């Protein structure tokens, strides 16, 4: 991603943009340079390149498909506004993920007062039938669904690291950059997050 970090900002765009058909193959940094030079059409390529990853990240954080596109659009609008000032100090996708995480945090704060579906409550419920449905060897899809719901039970501080690491497969360093904290903090939060999730999911995973 960062192979073209050394491209001078004042590079001659005519040299970069050899033809329209090669835009898809251009690196993020070259596209951003073109965008900053006034070629706003290239924004579409950046969106198409990253929209699905951003949508997946938001979906993992919220597990609500109805929210995904609204938040993803806000993320890309923010990117569109801030891209002219992008200084190439980090890779584009790390920066994009940081914006996504910040937007998701904002949304989580807004929704804090609401009551969510609580897996704890469900497991503690006196409804024996419901409990047996969960505990009797869930099939693969329903297990994934329960894991996703379990993820929603984690506080945002622990949920986002586990999403970035175990779903998106980012490195500790990338996570530290996105979450704007030290690598040590990332490791510690991730460890605690996994332990908390394990505790929540223990009844189901042990049963299966």
């Amino acid at each position, binding site marked *: 991603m960062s192979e073209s970090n050394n491209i001078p900002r004042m590079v001659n765009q005519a040299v970069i943009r050899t033809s329209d058909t090669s835009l898809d193959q251009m690196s993020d940094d070259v596209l951003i340079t073109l965008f900053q030079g006034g070629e706003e059409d290239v924004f*579409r390529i950046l*969106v*198409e390149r990253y*929209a*699905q990853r951003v*949508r*997946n990240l938001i*979906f*993992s954080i919220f597990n609500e*498909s109805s929210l*995904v*596109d*609204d938040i*993803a*659009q806000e993320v*890309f*609008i923010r990117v*569109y506004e801030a891209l002219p000032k992008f200084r190439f100090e980090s890779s584009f996708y790390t920066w994009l993920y940081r914006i996504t995480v910040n937007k998701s945090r904002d949304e989580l704060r807004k929704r804090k007062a609401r009551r969510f579906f609580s897996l704890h409550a469900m497991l503690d419920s006196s409804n024996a039938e419901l409990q047996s449905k969960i505990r009797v060897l869930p099939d693969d899809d329903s*297990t*994934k669904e329960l*894991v*996703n719901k379990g*993820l929603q039970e984690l506080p945002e501080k622990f949920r986002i690291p*586990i999403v970035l*690491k*175990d*779903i998106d*497969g980012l490195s*500790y360093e990338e996570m530290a950059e996105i979450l704007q904290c030290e690598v040590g903090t990332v*490791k510690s939060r*991730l*460890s605690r997050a*996994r332990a908390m*999730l*394990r505790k929540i*999911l*223990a009844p189901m*995973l*042990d049963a299966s």
Partner: protein
Amino acid sequence: MMSLYLDDALDEEDKIRFENYLAENPDVAAELRAWKKQQQLLRSNQGIRPNEWFWQKLSVRLGQREKKAENIFPFSKKYVPLAAALTVLVALLGGIAVFQQRALLTSFFSEKQQQVQQIYEGSVLPGKLLPLFTNLNKDQVLQFALFGTLPVDAQAKTALRVDESKEKGTRIEFASDETEHYPQLTVKKFCDEIGATSDEHRSVDSILSEARDKIQASVFLGENRSLAVHADLPMMNRTMMSNIAASLDQPQRMKFKKFLAVSGSPYTFVIPPSLPGHAPAPARRMPPHPGMEQFVLITPDSCTIAHLKIDLQQVMRSQDLSVQEVRTMNERAHALIREFAQHARRPIAPNSPLSVFSGSNYLSIKVEENALEAPPGEMPFEVVARAPRALQFQYEMHQTPGMPKFFNGDSEASDRFFQNTPPPGVWNEGAPQSRNIDLDSVISAPRDRKSRPHSDQSKKRYKSPFEL
């Protein structure tokens, strides 16, 4: 330690120590297996289904945002306070200077006023210009988008109908209002019917608002008995429909398509085959109206295509009309249309791209394909006529083998019809660029014809196409 081991982030020495510890503690080893399983389940998460219309919806929102954020100043917004302060200072200094030189200025402007009056009185452009459509609401605009018909005046039961297609060229018609044959739609009802999300509702609203502004700036009535219809108007309904389709998600888009079929719309749109990476063109912008614009001009004895420059800002200032004023204007428009329809029984000029048809209750103008300038860009979804409900114009319905077609070259020639000189009351290239608009004289002008009797028909109850 277990978390770092799981991520293979331990150095070799710590890794061996931890593995020895696991061998001695089966409970911890079992816990590690559970963590691994948990991690596998998370990694197997396939995410959300791709949304192939994501860019379309984003581009609509970006467009709305740009419109809101548009900076009307030729400098950055951060200098606005400074500019405001400077403006106040300049105004203050100017005011002082004017006050000191007031006697000189009064005499100067008095002289100039007399000169302007003389020019105005001797001008060939003494007319006024008023927009025919004022205060359209979004429901009417939606009706226009879906059915291609816009009521000129509910009392007179006359509607403007337009269409533009590859097959039939551009058509403009003033005829009896047939909107009552279509469901009486509201934007809310429409959005409810197609299950639009709040975001989509906003997009539809935005498309209709933009179109409303364009429609209101597309049809003008000249005081000196002329009617000007902007060349872009005939394709606006199809463009709106296409843009609405592009702003919707696929399930809502399918419902919209079904809605068109059930509600009897003469149009439908084509959804291209869903190929990987395929996406429709971005929403087509409603054509702007800057500078010289192409209009179809109608006067009692002429019809022509001309490039006009209309000072929209000045005209729009006169939009705030009272009900009586609007009624007077509509009566004048009707009278003009009827008079034109009577004169229209004349032969067509050689090589004219216009064909005109008229009857006792309609006036249709057909413009040959390519005679008008095409708007830029393509529509996101191609909007096509729906067989057998395709939008039919009166002349098509009345054109039976036994009925002669007007302007077919078999009647007396006229040297006035299809003349190229635009009528007084509107500007053409090279004409003076400013004039006074005197609303009072327009409103108090004698009526050409009495309006039709007031018809207060109650609107038919809208029956939802989806009602069982």
